[in-house]
């Protein structure tokens, strides 16, 4: 082994030819302004501007008053900043029948989002775990069928799902009213109806089902990458299906959980189609309300309110990305399609 000591003695021995040691030595110096770097950063800056400019225009416009907007200087900074458009977008803007702004849509979205995310991720997590570690006869076929579901456009299923929700709701109502005498004898307790079509619960179910293919794929692949021996060791240690999931697998799954949460939160929050089809006007999610504000044809177009409303709607996914961006990348890499 040539350690530093012997290297030094070698150098001393070569002293007479010192001149040869003056050449390049150590790490090669790197120029900061090389042609490659100019190209790289140039492209990055252009792309960044391309994406940030619309955002800038939106923010600036949302802080201007209408007379100032009418001057037409889209890129100029606001002369006197006003938050009135934000207040109006949140609390006063008219959407169809009611005039209480986006706040109603926001809370509707939250009410849709939280149960959908929890429900879909829990089901997908357990399914993915079962499909990767507790393979049963036909589990591969089952998984393939599930994946095929990911390739069918949602629009094809819109109307069938309407019928299913309506009929299942009626069916459940019948069961409820038929059996309710067994559980309670209180007066009038049997008058309730199970409504799936045109209600938030129906939309939650739809979101959970449509999120299944991609989420199960994600979880299955992640769990498949956890060594088989770990799973075997846990079985020898006497852990069962749920214990292995909760004590061994889930504590190792933070990255993939974050990915799933981000996918579902942004997907469900940004959803427009299901929201407009499966709910009624007073339950519209934020995106549908935003559309109603921005696309309303009566009166003047209040660009500043529209911009503020759009920004407000985009705030939740944006916050999610900012908070968990790093974990997201790590998780995507971990859950990459495999076996």
């Amino acid at each position, binding site marked *: 082994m040539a350690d530093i000591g012997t290297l030094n003695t070698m150098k001393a021995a070569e002293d007479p030819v010192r001149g040869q040691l003056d050449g390049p030595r150590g790490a090669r110096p790197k120029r900061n302004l090389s042609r490659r770097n100019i190209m790289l950063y140039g492209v990055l800056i252009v792309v960044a501007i391309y994406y940030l400019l619309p955002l800038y225009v939106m923010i600036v416009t949302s802080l201007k008053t209408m007379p100032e907007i009418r001057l037409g200087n889209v890129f100029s900074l606001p002369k006197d900043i006003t938050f009135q458009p934000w207040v109006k977008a949140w609390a006063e803007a008219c959407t169809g029948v009611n005039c209480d702004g986006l706040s109603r849509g926001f809370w509707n979205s939250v009410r849709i989002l939280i149960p959908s995310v929890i429900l879909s991720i829990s089901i997908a997590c357990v399914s993915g775990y079962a499909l990767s570690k507790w393979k049963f006869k036909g589990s591969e076929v089952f998984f393939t069928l599930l994946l095929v579901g990911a390739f069918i456009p949602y629009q094809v299923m819109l109307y069938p799902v309407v019928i299913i929700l309506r009929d299942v709701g009626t069916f459940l109502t019948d069961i409820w009213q038929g059996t309710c005498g067994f559980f309670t004898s209180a007066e009038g307790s049997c008058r309730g109806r199970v409504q799936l079509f045109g209600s938030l619960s129906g939309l939650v179910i739809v979101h959970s089902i449509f999120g299944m293919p991609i989420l199960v794929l994600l979880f299955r692949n992640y769990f498949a990458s956890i*060594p088989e*021996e*770990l799973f*075997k*060791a*846990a*079985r*020898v*240690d*006497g*852990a069962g299906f749920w*214990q292995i999931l909760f*004590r*061994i697998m889930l*504590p*190792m799954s933070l990255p993939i959980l974050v990915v799933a949460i981000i996918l579902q939160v942004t997907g469900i929050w940004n959803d427009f189609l299901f929201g407009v089809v499966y709910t009624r006007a007073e339950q519209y999610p934020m995106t549908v309300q935003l559309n109603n504000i921005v696309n309303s044809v009566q009166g003047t177009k209040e660009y500043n309110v529209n911009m503020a409303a759009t920004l407000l709607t985009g705030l939740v996914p944006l916050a999610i990305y900012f908070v968990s961006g790093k974990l997201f990348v790590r998780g995507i890499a971990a859950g990459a399609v495999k076996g």
Partner: protein
Amino acid sequence: MTDHSVQIKDLDLHFGAVKVLQNLNLDIHDGEFLVLLGSSGCGKSTLLNCIAGLLEPTDGQIFIKGQNVTWKEPSERGIGMVFQSYALYPQMTVEGNLSFGLKNARVPKDEIKRRVDRAAEILQIEPLLKRKPGALSGGQRQRVAIGRALVRDVDVFLFDEPLSNLDAKLRADLRVELKRLHHQLKNTMIYVTHDQVEAMTLANRIAIMKGGLIMQLDTPDVIYNRPVNKYVADFIGSPSMNFIEGTLERGTFRAGEFTMRMQGYDFAAGSAQDGPAIAGIRPEHIVTGELAANMPATMQVKAELVEPMGSDTLIWSRVNDEPFRIRMDGHLPVEEGEILNIGIDPARVSLFDTSTEERL
């Protein structure tokens, strides 16, 4: 019945059309250290997984301590298992890893603590109890993995190539420790490996497997000196055995110019004494130098290649155009190209039938 710790009866395991284990029978004595040895894909790990209950056999029965455990869960079989990749739970501390199985079995807290402390003491991992597996070295991790089997207070330990992930020096150290552990605990241990040194040094008995069948089950000494067939003879020993094809005529083996009267050779009962045969000669059983002339069979070979290894020297030569290896004392000087006189003791040779490759 109680003499047998683990019994395997007519075990079959098929993956679709692939027969991994075929009609396998194995009796393992109480307190025995049995090594399952074979090249990869011979079914040795599969067999171990069947004993552990991690794989369902297609047919056959498994008994542990006289109890039929064929349908039992792994945790109910009274086994502890150590894996090649350690398989420690990464998010738990060492203590958590050791106690996980006991908590699942609802063992009282003070009992858990007592057993964990005892295992930690035996394996000398007490200072590591509060650490996570990520902060341990390979050798420490494998100790914890052994500890996890130890705390379960089981009758049978199963090892699935536990030392394969360690570097050579650590492997040698842990090997000795495992042997010491076996002396101390006197449990039945079943150990899967493809490393013949581990097998020879650790085992009371070795089962050599090939293609889902046990070729030979015997003590290391018998396996080494009296291999039942050519496969076993070739598999055991490093450098591997030399094979010379020839014929056997009335107790004399002939191959080209080389003849060897098989006096002192212990022929297997009822085996043919005439016909084509293969003589297997271990490189370390070949005598060189002055003593060679005293041997019953002698020949001259040319040293084509010399590999000095310090303690001994390996010489590559050719006999009847087949490579021929000789292992000799490292002190004796040998030049490449030199003609060597070698002597062979027929009693230490193994003869195999050319067609069946069974021992004669």
